[in-house]
Structures are given as structure tokens and as C-alpha cells.
């Protein structure tokens, strides 16, 4: 009797759950379609760090992106560029990769936005979930929150400009909150050793001079290691 009741409950709930997923994805679908023609881009980026433990001058670099997930950053000088939230990747939010849930739909000052929670179906890059704020009028993502399993949080606030018919970031402010980090090699025996305090701060990236669909080859994005000669 119990089993029958359980089966009935599942039979009723499962389509509802699937529907909820489908319903939430309808906010991402227009974005996917909007950027379907974006195969690659390059842009100049200026980076400003505002982190206590990251004393760096403003940096300039060139970023290369190729659909679906190839990224390369080049600079004449040494450069640190944030992996999560630092660049725009429209192919990041595939329905097959996430369980998508609608958190909130807002309408404020004539702007319609929704907040979605994306939970990866498979463990990848230590990613626990993404919280996206979507401007449903322009089909852009003005805010993205990345939450990782170890408690790291990154929140990107993105401003857009139109370049070659595509809305692409002109400015990204990335707030970083790292509660702990790898301290491999530091002896626990050490009486002086104090658990490192968390790291937080922000990184601002200003994009300009977009060049779109230049047709970069995949081998151009072969991982280059930081070191050696320029």
C-alpha cells in the first residue's frame, strides 16, 4: 500500500518538477538564441584590483574567447585574470548541464528581472551553484553569483554595451569572498601558524575594442603556462 502511495506521489510530482525546470529554462533560452551567432571574440581589458592581499597595479590585457569554453588572456606584462566571472561566456548555461530553478521574478522601475538558481548536474570545477539575475527585457545577465563547494563566493555585476549587434560586457565588477584556501606546505606543528584569514575584495574589468567572429582556431587556445620568456 505504502509503495503504491509513493509511486503515485512520484508520478504526480515528477512532471511538475520537470515542468518547473522547463519553465525556468525559458528565461535562459532567449539568451542562448541571442548569442548563438557569437562564435568568438577578442577584447581589450583593463583590470583593477581592490584586494588587501593582492597588491597589484592596474593591468591591461587582451582576452580571446571561442565558443564553447576556450579562453586565452595575453599581456605584455605579468597578469592575473579571474577564471570565474571575469569574462563573458554565453555558452556557460546549457540546460543539460544544470538543474534550473526560478527563485524570484521582479519588476522594478519598468525593468523585468528574474533570479535563477543553477545547480550543476555533475560536479565540475568545484562549482556548487550559480545564481543568475536575468534582465528579461534585454535578455542579458546583469548579475551572476558563483558559489563553490569550499565556500568561495564570487559575484559579478555586469554592465553591457552593444558591439556588432551583440550585447557584450563593458564593465564587470567581481566581488570575491574566499573563506579559506590551500596552505599546502605550511607546517601544522608551527606554533606561529595561524589559520589564514579569508580573502575578500573586488576586481573590476573594463572591456573595450571588441572584435567578433574572427574565426580563431582551437589550437590558438592551447594552454600557455605562466613563466619563461615572453
Amino acid at each position, binding site marked *: 500500500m505504502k509503495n503504491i502511495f509513493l509511486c503515485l506521489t512520484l508520478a504526480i510530482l515528477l512532471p511538475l518538477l520537470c515542468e518547473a525546470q522547463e519553465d525556468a529554462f525559458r528565461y535562459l533560452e532567449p539568451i542562448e538564441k541571442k548569442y548563438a551567432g557569437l562564435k568568438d571574440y577578442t577584447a581589450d581589458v583593463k583590470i583593477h584590483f581592490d584586494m588587501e*592581499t*593582492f*597588491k*597589484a*597595479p592596474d593591468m591591461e*590585457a587582451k582576452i580571446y574567447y571561442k565558443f564553447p569554453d576556450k*579562453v*586565452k*588572456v*595575453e*599581456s*605584455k*606584462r*605579468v*597578469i*592575473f*585574470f*579571474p*577564471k*570565474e566571472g571575469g569574462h563573458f561566456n554565453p555558452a556557460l548555461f546549457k540546460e543539460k548541464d544544470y538543474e534550473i530553478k526560478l527563485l524570484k521574478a521582479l519588476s522594478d522601475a519598468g525593468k523585468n528581472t528574474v533570479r535563477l538558481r543553477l545547480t550543476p548536474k555533475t560536479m565540475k570545477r*568545484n562549482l556548487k551553484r550559480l545564481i543568475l539575475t536575468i534582465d528579461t527585457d534585454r535578455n542579458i545577465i546583469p548579475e551572476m553569483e558563483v558559489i563553490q563547494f569550499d565556500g*568561495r563566493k564570487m559575484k559579478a555585476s555586469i554592465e553591457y554595451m552593444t558591439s556588432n549587434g551583440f550585447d557584450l560586457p563593458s564593465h564587470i565588477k567581481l566581488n*570575491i569572498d*574566499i573563506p579559506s*584556501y*590551500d*596552505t*599546502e*606546505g*605550511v*607546517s601544522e*606543528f*608551527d*606554533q*606561529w*601558524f595561524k589559520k*589564514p584569514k579569508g*580573502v575578500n575584495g573586488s576586481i573590476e574589468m573594463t572591456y573595450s575594442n571588441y572584435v567578433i567572429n574572427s574565426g580563431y582556431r582551437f589550437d590558438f587556445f592551447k594552454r*600557455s*603556462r*605562466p*613563466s*619563461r*620568456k*615572453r
Partner: protein
Amino acid sequence: MKLFLLETFKTFSRWRTYISFAVIALIVILTEVVMKLSGDEIVNRMLKPFQRDFFISGNVLNVWLITAFIMNSLHIHIPFLITLVAGDMVSSEATAGTIRFLLIRPPSRIRIITAKYLTALFYTAILVIFFAVLCVCLGLTLFGSGDLIVHHYGQFDVAFIPESEVPVRIFLSFIAAIWAMSVVASIAFLFSTLAENSIGPIIGTMAVVIVFLVLGSLPLDFFRMLKPYFFTTHMINLWQQFLEVPIQWHVIVRSAIVLGIHNICLFLTAMFMFKRKDIKS
């Protein structure tokens, strides 16, 4: 001045003086060649805390990083090389039996000891300058220039020193290194005035340096409390502070003064001992 020139000529006429230069050349060349061959591994290890969160590109492993890396071993091998000569300045006269001839000449004992001390300091400076020139010249050839990334091991803490600023900072840190190493020369020189052979001052100086370095690095609260009073702490602090962001000038000034006081006290003690030296027996 004439005495100083004579002492300098005497010092640089001995073949043992050049052992230090040869050793430094060997250390620097070997280190830089090995770093050239295994550079990726070193950079990856250094930047591991950041590689998860950042794309890192550019010439991280450049001459300035290599120079700073090699300079970190300054407080271990350079003192030994300095003692080889500074510890021999006065004691070699006793060993060779020339001290009586030296002291019956017209120049006063104070002038003689001052000339010898200045020679020891001059040798120290030349050795560190040789070390600096070799590090930088070979490093520039092998690795090229770039921004200096200063990273505190095991911490999510990094500071960039722009390429335009690094040469001046490296130059200042080598000047600071000369000042720091002059204390080792002073200790060796003091021991040299007390001994009749050169082995004692060399071993004695190294023992003092090593004991203080070891005590200063022991991870125990008791030694942590004492560490600010060790001359070795100021020796290391002094040059390393020029590679911090921002430069802690008050730490540099304090360390420079502490080391200066050490130098004066050690030299005055050496002078006192030398003046009282009995050459009749």
C-alpha cells in the same frame, strides 16, 4: 688611505680571496641554469594557491624573481664566504709571524686595525656586488625582464612590483645586503683579533650566525619572543623589506641602525683587543 690600499692589495693578492668569488659564480650559474630547465615546476609551485582562481600569463620567471630567490640564500652561504677573508685579516698576521713586524712600524695600532677593518668591509662589498652583477646579468640573458611577483609562501598574498620599479628596488636591496653582511665581517674581524690562526674565527663566526639563524627560525613562542633581538633577524629584514609592497621604511631604518650599532660595537671591541694585544710573548 695608504694603509687601506696596502691591506686591500695584500688581501686581493691571496688566492684564497678568490675562492669566494668562484663559489658564488658556481652557485649562481648552477641555480640559474637549473631554474631555466625546471622553471615551470617552480612557477607552478609558487603560484599554486592562485592557479585555481586566476589565469596567469606573462613572464613570471624573470631575472628579478630569480635574483630575489637566490638572494634568499644570502644569509647562509655569503656569511661563510665573507668569514674566509674577514676572519683571516688579523689572525693571518699572527699565523705568518708578521704581526710583530707590523706593529713595530710607525703607523699606530688604531690606524692599522682601522685599515684592516675597512679592507674587510671593502671585500664584503665587492663580494656582494659581484654576486649582484652576476645574478642580474646572467638572469637577464637567460630569463629576460618583467614584473616581480612577491609571494609569501603558503599564503593567498601576492604583490606586484612593476618592471620599471624593480631594478631600483633590487639595487637598494643589494646595498642593504652589503650593510647586513658587514655585521658578519665585523664578527669575523673581531674573532680574528682574538685568535692566532684563521680556522677559529671562520668557524666561530659561522657558529654564531648559524645558531642565531636556527634559533630565529624555530617555531616556538620562546624564540619568537627573542627573535626581534637577533642580529640575523635584522640582517634578513633589511634587504627583504625593499621587496615588500609598500616598503616598510621604519623597519629598514630600525634594522639599519641596529646593524650599524653592532658594527660599531664589534669594531670598537676589536680595536680594544688589538690595542691590548701582547706581541712580546
